[in-house]
């Protein structure tokens, strides 16, 4: 008999889970069964998403951050290139857009989050990709590179429409890099940078929020809080974000992070997703509420952690162990603690590092131990760490290698409680 594990999505989560499961079942059989792993994605382009931040500033190129999905999967894993029509959980079957049906014993939803441009009035209307951009996809990030290069001064507004978004620190990093970029070009004094967020501070967690607010102030970046964008207006010189409460934020160039939702097929699959097409998932075991043989990872879930690659990475270890337990009819035991870890690029060759989980907010100190990298403090070492990370992503994280000292559980040593 063969047990079939179908993984929907060949991004960070889908790839690392497929590779880790494949490695395990190459050496262990599941109750005398062999295990077949199939990964489905609509295309063969795996994007290193953290790289998108650097494209507008000419610090990364499209070709450097995209590789074939297929090539990231270990030999022996089947890759199916097709869109997904729906999951029929009562039949344990995925129906693909190309008509093929895939029966599964275990399903992993790893299709991430997508940008819901249409949910904001006027966002893709006049001025879209001319004076109004996003850097959350490659078209926007590339277009923005040209727009920034031509920008000679005026109001630059960076706006988060609503949470949750992928990598909640990326819009702040964009502000910091814009400050650096215009300083390098010698026109920083001609550019007014504003960060408009629906949150009541710079970030979601209090200690980091205070530190990041200070940094914004130091760099002369204006902070507009509790701003809920109702409409983007861009008619000739009349360019502004209009909040639902009537407040207006005028701009010459706007960088908008649209609302996010789960994949469309989740909405077409009865009993799988919530109102936003995210998949209700147990935050510790990563088993979905939909059915015991359906698991989910990364941005596709509704777990109360950041939608970020590091979360997906740490979830992966737990998820793989729990899938093995499930297939072997053992109780799920592994628990994910909400561990997240992000470098925050702050410009001028420096970066901050934050490390947190469900219960511990980002704190100062060092990571992973007292002699490690500085936490919540700008340093050149963190910037180098951020640059190094791309190598680590392709060569260690996706192939599913364990990295000593960096595990799923958040390290406590080195943190200073304040």
């Amino acid at each position, binding site marked *: 008999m063969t047990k079939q594990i179908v993984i929907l999505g060949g991004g960070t989560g889908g790839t690392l889970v497929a590779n880790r499961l494949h490695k395990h079942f190459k050496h262990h059989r599941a109750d005398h069964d062999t295990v077949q792993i199939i990964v489905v994605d609509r295309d063969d382009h795996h994007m290193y998403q953290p790289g998108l931040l650097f494209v507008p500033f000419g610090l990364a190129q499209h070709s450097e951050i995209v590789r074939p999905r297929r090539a990231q999967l270990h030999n022996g894993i089947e890759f199916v290139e097709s869109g997904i029509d729906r999951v029929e959980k009562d039949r344990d079957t995925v129906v693909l857009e190309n008509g093929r049906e895939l029966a599964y014993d275990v399903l992993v939803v790893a299709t991430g989050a997508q940008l819901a441009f249409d*949910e904001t009035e006027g966002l893709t209307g006049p001025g879209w990709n001319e004076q109004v951009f996003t850097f959350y996809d490659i078209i926007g990030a590339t277009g923005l590179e040209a727009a920034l290069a031509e920008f000679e001064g005026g109001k630059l507004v960076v706006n988060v429409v*609503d*949470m*949750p978004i992928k990598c*909640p620190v990326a819009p702040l990093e964009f502000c910091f890099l814009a400050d650096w970029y215009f300083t390098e070009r010698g026109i920083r004094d001609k550019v007014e940078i504003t960060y408009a967020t*629906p*949150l009541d501070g710079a970030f*979601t967690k209090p200690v980091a929020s205070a530190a990041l607010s200070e940094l914004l102030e130091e760099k002369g970046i204006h902070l507009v809080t*509790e701003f*809920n964008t*109702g409409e983007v207006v861009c008619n000739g010189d009349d360019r502004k974000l209009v909040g*639902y*409460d009537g407040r207006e934020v005028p701009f010459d160039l706007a960088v908008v992070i649209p*609302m996010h939702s789960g994949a469309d097929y989740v909405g077409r699959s009865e009993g799988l997703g919530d*109102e*936003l097409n995210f998949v209700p998932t147990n935050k510790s075991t990563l088993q979905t509420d939909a059915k015991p043989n359906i698991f989910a990872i990364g941005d596709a879930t509704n777990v*109360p*952690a*950041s*939608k970020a690659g590091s979360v997906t990475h740490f979830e992966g270890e737990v998820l793989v162990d729990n899938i093995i337990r499930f297939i072997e009819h053992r109780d799920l035991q592994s628990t994910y603690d909400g561990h997240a870890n992000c470098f925050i690029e702050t410009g001028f060759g420096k970066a901050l590092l934050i490390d947190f989980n469900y219960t511990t907010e980002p704190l100062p100190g060092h990571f992973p131990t007292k002699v490690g990298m500085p936490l919540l403090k700008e340093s050149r070492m963190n910037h180098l760490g951020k640059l190094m990370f791309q190598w680590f992503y392709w060569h260690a994280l996706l192939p599913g290698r364990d990295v000593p000292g960096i595990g799923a559980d958040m390290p406590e040593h080195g943190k200073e409680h304040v």
Partner: protein
Amino acid sequence: MSTATYAGVSVELNDEGFFVDPTQWTKDIAVELAKADDIDELTPQHWTVLEFMRKEYFEKGTGPTVRVLGKTSGVSVKDLYLLFPKGPAKMAARIAGIPKPKGCI
């Protein structure tokens, strides 16, 4: 934590003014809370939103965010802001006697 009296009922509130125990809520309390938030009269549309929020809270353990309200309550986000100008999710949650929605991550 503090205690306040609305419509003759003594209720417990957390530091941000949200109900600790949503079962203490009554419609008369809602009318008083609304007045304190400058809503002189609760219209049928207000009630639709308040009842929807309570239903969601008791089913899911948290009140909906504005975006989810706009998608599922039958009232558009624009209208939600007209009904509850100080921010629909928080303001409606307070008047509906449920804890602050856990929307933001």
